[in-house]
C-alpha cells in the first residue's frame, strides 16, 4: 500500500488554504466556462495558463485542473435547461436532460448530472491512484487498428437509437459523415469539399453545429409552440438533492457500465465526447428503462454524465505517464507542465513524486469541493427557467452566437450556426434523429483517419482488425452490437415461440 502513504503525503501538499482557495476560484471559473458554449475547457485553461507561470507547479496545476472539473460540471447546466450543450461532451446529456426540464424536473436532472459526474470522476481518480503504471502500459497497445475498433464500437452501440425508422437514422449519420469530411484530409494532406471557399478550410466545427442544431433549433421549435417555455411552471423545492439521490441506487448497473466505458475511452484516448455517447447508447440498450430514453429519464442523464466525467478525468493519466494528452484540455495542461519545468512521461512518477501525488490528491478534493458548490447552486440554476420565455429566448440566442463565434473567432461560424439551427428545426419536424448526425460529425474524421492509418500499416488488408485479441474482440463486439437490433427484430418476427432476446 505504497500508494496510500504517497497519497496521504499528497493530501498534505494539496490541503493548504492557498490551494483550496485556488480550487474554489478555479471551479467557479470552470463552471462559467462550461456554461458558455464555445468557450471550452481547453480555451479556458489556455487563457489562464500564463497567469500560473509565477506559481509553484503544484498550486498551478491545482488551479488549472479545477477549471477543468468546473467545465465538466458546468457543461451540463445549459444542456439541461436550454438544450444547448455548453461542452461537446454534454450533447448526450441534452437527450434526456432537456425533456426532464420541460416536464418541470430540471432540479432532479441537474442533481443527477452533477452527482453522476462526481461518481465518474472519483472512479477514474481511484484508477489513477492505484493502477496508473499498469493502465499506462495498456494504453500503449493501441495502434490505428485498435483505435478504429473502439470508434466502430461507439457507432455500433449507437445504431438503432433513433426513434424514427432505422433508415432515417442511417441518413442522418451519413450526412454527419459527409459534413465531417470537409476541410483538410489528414492522411493525404489535401483539401476536400471546400469548393475554393477559405471559410471551409477548417471544416464544420462540431460545437458550431451542435449549438445551432440543438440550441437554435430548440428556440425555433418553442417559438412555434406559442412562445412559452414548458419548464416554466417548475416548482422550486429544496429537497431536490435527497429526492434524486433516492432514485440513484437502482441505476447501479448504469453507473458501473459508464464508469468502465469512460475510463477506457479516457485512457485509450478516445476522449470524453465519444465516451458520453457510448455510455448513453449502452445504457439505452441494456437498461430496463431503455425504451423510455429520450423522453426525460433520469438514467439517460446519469449514463452520459458518468462516462464523460470518468473519461475527462482519466484522460489526465496518459498525459502524466506517457506525455500524450487524452483530450484537448489535457493537451494544454501538457504544455503547462513543460513550461513549469516538469517533463511528463514515464519518469514523472519517479522524479516528481510531490507534484504527482499532490495533483492526484487535488483531484479528489477538487471534485468534492466542486460537487458541493454546484449542488448548492441547483435551485439557483433551476430558477432561471422561471424567467419568462420572451426574455430568456433572446438571451439564449445571444449566448449561442457568442459561443459559435468564440470557437474560432469567426463571424462565418455564427451564420453557420444559424443555418444549422434551421436544419435542426427541419430535422425535428421531419422526424430525423439528430444524435447520429452529431456523433458522426464528432467521431467521423477520427474514425476515418484511424481506418486509413490501419490500412496503410497493413497494406490494404482488412483482416488487420482481427490480427490480435485486443482489436479483434472489440471489433467482434461492435459487429454484434451493430446487428443486434436486426437480430432482435428478426427474432420477434419469426421466433415468437422462443423467449425474447432481451
Amino acid at each position, binding site marked *: 500500500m505504497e500508494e496510500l502513504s504517497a497519497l496521504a503525503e499528497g493530501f498534505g501538499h494539496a490541503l493548504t488554504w492557498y490551494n483550496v482557495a485556488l480550487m474554489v476560484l478555479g471551479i467557479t471559473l470552470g463552471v462559467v466556462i462550461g456554461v458558455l458554449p464555445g468557450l471550452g475547457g481547453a480555451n479556458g485553461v489556455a487563457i489562464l495558463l500564463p497567469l500560473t507561470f509565477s506559481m509553484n507547479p503544484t498550486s498551478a496545476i491545482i488551479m488549472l485542473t479545477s477549471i477543468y472539473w468546473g467545465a465538466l460540471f458546468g457543461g451540463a447546466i445549459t444542456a439541461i435547461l436550454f438544450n444547448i450543450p455548453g461542452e461537446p461532451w454534454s450533447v448526450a446529456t441534452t437527450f434526456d436532460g432537456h425533456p426532464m426540464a420541460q416536464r418541470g424536473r430540471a432540479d432532479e436532472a441537474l442533481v443527477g448530472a452533477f452527482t453522476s459526474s462526481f461518481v465518474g470522476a472519483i472512479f477514474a481518480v481511484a484508477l489513477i491512484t492505484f493502477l496508473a503504471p499498469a493502465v499506462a502500459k495498456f494504453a500503449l497497445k493501441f495502434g490505428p487498428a485498435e483505435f478504429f475498433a473502439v470508434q466502430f464500437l461507439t457507432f455500433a452501440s449507437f445504431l438503432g437509437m433513433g426513434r424514427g425508422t432505422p433508415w432515417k437514422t442511417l441518413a442522418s449519420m451519413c450526412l454527419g459523415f459527409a459534413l465531417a469530411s470537409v476541410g483538410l484530409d489528414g492522411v493525404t494532406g*489535401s483539401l476536400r469539399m471546400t469548393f475554393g471557399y477559405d471559410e471551409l478550410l477548417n471544416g464544420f466545427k462540431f460545437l458550431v453545429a451542435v449549438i445551432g442544431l440543438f440550441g437554435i433549433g430548440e428556440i425555433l421549435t418553442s417559438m412555434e409552440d406559442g412562445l412559452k417555455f414548458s419548464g416554466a411552471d417548475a416548482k422550486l423545492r429544496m429537497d431536490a438533492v435527497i429526492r434524486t439521490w433516492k432514485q440513484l441506487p437502482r441505476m447501479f448497473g448504469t453507473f458501473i457500465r459508464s464508469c468502465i466505458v469512460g475510463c477506457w475511452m479516457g485512457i485509450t484516448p478516445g476522449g470524453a465526447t465519444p465516451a458520453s455517447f457510448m455510455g448513453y447508447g449502452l445504457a439505452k440498450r441494456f437498461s430496463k428503462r431503455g425504451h423510455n430514453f429520450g423522453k426525460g429519464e433520469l438514467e439517460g442523464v446519469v449514463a452520459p454524465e458518468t462516462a464523460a466525467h470518468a473519461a475527462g478525468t482519466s484522460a489526465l493519466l496518459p498525459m502524466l505517464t506517457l506525455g500524450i494528452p487524452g483530450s484537448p484540455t489535457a493537451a494544454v495542461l501538457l504544455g503547462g507542465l*513543460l*513550461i513549469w519545468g516538469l517533463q511528463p512521461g514515464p519518469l514523472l512518477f519517479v522524479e516528481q513524486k510531490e507534484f504527482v501525488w499532490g495533483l492526484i490528491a487535488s483531484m479528489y478534493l477538487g471534485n468534492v469541493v466542486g460537487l458541493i458548490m454546484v449542488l448548492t447552486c441547483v435551485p439557483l440554476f433551476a430558477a432561471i427557467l422561471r424567467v419568462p420565455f420572451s426574455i430568456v429566448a433572446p438571451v439564449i440566442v445571444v449566448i449561442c452566437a457568442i459561443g459559435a463565434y468564440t470557437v*474560432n473567432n469567426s463571424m462565418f461560424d455564427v451564420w453557420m450556426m444559424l443555418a444549422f439551427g434551421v436544419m435542426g428545426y427541419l430535422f425535428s419536424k421531419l422526424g430525423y434523429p439528430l444524435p447520429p448526425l452529431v456523433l458522426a460529425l464528432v467521431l467521423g474524421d477520427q474514425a476515418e483517419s484511424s481506418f486509413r492509418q490501419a490500412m*496503410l500499416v497493413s497494406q490494404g488488408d482488412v483482416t488487420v482488425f482481427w490480427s490480435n485479441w485486443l482489436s479483434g474482440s472489440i471489433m467482434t463486439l461492435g459487429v454484434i452490437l451493430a446487428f443486434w437490433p436486426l437480430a432482435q427484430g428478426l427474432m420477434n418476427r419469426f421466433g415468437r415461440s422462443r423467449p425474447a432476446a432481451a
Partner: protein
Amino acid sequence: MRMKSWKTIAKRLGLAAGLGVLASAPALAWEPTKPVTLIIPAGTGGGADQMARFIQGVIQKHELMSKPLIVVNKGGGAGAEGFLEMKASANDPHKIVITLSNLFTTPLGTGTPFNWKDMKPVKMMALDQFILWVNASEPYKTAGDYISAVKAGEDRAFKMGGTGSKQEDQIITVAIEKETGGKKFTYVPYDGGGKVAVQLVGGHITSSVNNPIEAVAQWRGGQLRPLCIFDKARSTYTAKVTEAQAWGDIPTCAESGLPIEYQMLRGIFTTKNATPDQVAYYEGVLKKVMETPEWKEFMEKGAFNQTTMTGSEFEAWLTAAEARHRELMTGAGFVAGAK
C-alpha cells in the same frame, strides 16, 4: 540607439496611445494601441503552440508589453486558416504569427494562395531540430544499422510515423528514402508529434523523426533511442539528459552516412504593411524575451538550435528555405496541381 530613444519615448507614448493620435506618426517609435493577437497556425498542444504560450507567459511575467498579448489557435487547413487571416489583415499591425514549416509546405501542398511574402518577417526565434528515433528494444544502434536493415528488408516493410501529411516529417522521410537503395517506407500520418512518439513506444511503427521535445520523455524513460540528428553539426547542449547521454552525444545524420539536414523555422511575423517602427517594436519585445533565463531553459529542454536572425538576413534565409521546400516537395510529388 533606436532602443534608447524607444525607451525614453515609450513613457510619453503611453499618453499618446491613450489619445490615439500620435501613435501612427512615423517619426516616433511605435507602441500598440490595442491588444495584440498572436496567431498559432496549428492546434493546441503542439510545438508551435507550446512556444507561443511560453512567449506569452514570459511577456506577461516580465511585463514586456504595454498592451495584452492574446494567443489564438487558427490551425484549420494545415495552418492555412491562420496565414490567410494574416494576409487579409495586411493593414493591422496588431497581429503577429508564429510559424512552423507549414509556412512553406501548406501553400505548396494544398494550393492555398499564400506566401511568406504576404507577411512581414520580424525575427527568427530558433530552429527546431529533428531526430531519427527507433524503439529502444530494436537492435539498431546507429542510423547506419537502421538504413542497412531497411535496404535489406522488403519494400515498405518499415513504417515511419509522422505528424501530418506532405509536411516536414514526410519530407524528411522522402529524403531518407533516397539513401535506402530504392526501398520505401510506409509513411503513417498522425495528428500530433506526441502521439507519434507513443505509437513508436507501442511498436505500431518502426521509426519516427520527432522533434526533440516530443520524444525526450520516452528517451529518458529508456523506451526510445535517438539514432541521429538532422543538423550539420551536433547539438551544443552537453548537460546529461539521460544517465549516459546528452543532446550533444547524438551523432549527426551525415556522420552516420545519411547526408540530410533539416530544421524547422520557429519565427515571428507581423502583417505585410507594418512600418519599420512597428517591426522594430516587436523585434525589441522578442529580443527581451530571448534574454530571460526562462527562455534559455526552454531552448535547452527542447534542444533547439539557437540561431536567430532579423531583417534582410532573415529574408534571405526565408527565400532560400522556400526554394528548398519547393525543390523537396516537387521531387516528392507533394505539390498540389496548379490551377
